[in-house]
């Protein structure tokens, strides 16, 4: 009679999850931000973009004067909403560029 081994099942599942995710993609959005000049205000911008449910992470770059938005897998970008959130943070949004990246 075969016995169920929970430890073995958990190990197989842990190995399988990364394999399932392999090759999956998610969308990323880069938006130019005008008027962003200091670290403290950049954080306010990142926090504001986090209000959009599909945003997994928003990272501002002072040098490049843009914000890099990583979306949750399987979600679509809402550029109008992101630009509104940038505006709400006190800055002026510029051009937006959407691309895809592989989930590592």
């Amino acid at each position, binding site marked *: 009679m075969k016995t169920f081994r929970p430890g073995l099942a958990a190990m197989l599942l842990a190995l399988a999850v990364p394999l399932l995710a392999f090759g999956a993609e998610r969308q990323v959005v880069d938006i*130019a931000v*005008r*008027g*962003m*000049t*200091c*670290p*403290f*205000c*950049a*954080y*306010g*911008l*990142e*926090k*504001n973009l986090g209000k959009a449910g599909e945003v997994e992470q928003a*990272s*501002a*770059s*002072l*040098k*490049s*004067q843009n914000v890099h938005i990583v979306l949750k897998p399987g979600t679509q970008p809402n550029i109008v909403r992101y630009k509104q959130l940038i*505006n*709400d*943070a*006190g*800055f*002026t949004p510029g051009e937006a560029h959407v691309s895809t990246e592989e989930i590592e």
Partner: protein
Amino acid sequence: MNPSFRGIVAPAILGVWTSAAIAAPLTFNTALPVSTDEWIVREQFIYMKSTDDPSPMKRRMEVSALVTTLGYGVTRDFAVFGMLPYADKRLSMNAGGRDASRSRAGPGDLILMGRYTAHEENGRRYTFRIAPFLGVKTPTGSDGASDSLGRLPPPLQPGSGSWDWQGGAVASWQTLEWGGDIQFAHRANGEANRFRAGATSRLDLSVQRRLWPRTLGEGVPGFLYGGLEANLVHVGKNRMRGEDDPNSGGTTLYLTPTVQYVTRKWVLEAGIQIPVSQRLNGTALENDYILTTGFRLNL
């Protein structure tokens, strides 16, 4: 006891009450943004010493204050601020050949302020903004404190007992390397206990320079700023029982070297206000220096 040095204490505390946001001046306001729904808290420790007494009374006043400021972005253009000081005020003097010392510690008057960004220009690597502001100081602190010698004079009371109004405008220009601010503010004081502190008008300038990192990398690194501020403060004469106090008020010019370390979530800052010119009326007590240090948090 002469109440004339209230004209010194009030502008010192007044100067810091509106600048909760961003890498900006230490001693006055800024027009830089507070995001919608964003909370910012600022805690400042201020130590002020005034010992240069032109009268034979050898007056010496020291004020240590902890000032808590909370800022909130109502909209992208409108932010509100609340500030509550807790101060320990000590006055010693020689009267009639005897040394006397009086002191009081306690929460002071709550200040509420609104700031609206009326003009804004955002470009690549720079921003320029103009923001008028209006505030009121509410009489929440005790103004009837006394000690064994009787009722304390107005400068030693934790609160003024009066409603005081302040308005002005600030313009801020900032790039990734440099920042500059200019402000004009006026404060009119109400009357309480038959005493009205002199109105305060001030013109402030600030220049900040990013010292580190020298070369900007990707992301959002911490910035170290060095700065220099100038505050030209004119205080009118106090009125006591309907008459001007000839030994109160005057004009002071402060220079303030500052240093700030600014990260995404917090700011550390310090500066010392040095009076380079004091033209005070009568025997008004002159200020030695005002030391300010503290932090801000982006909640």
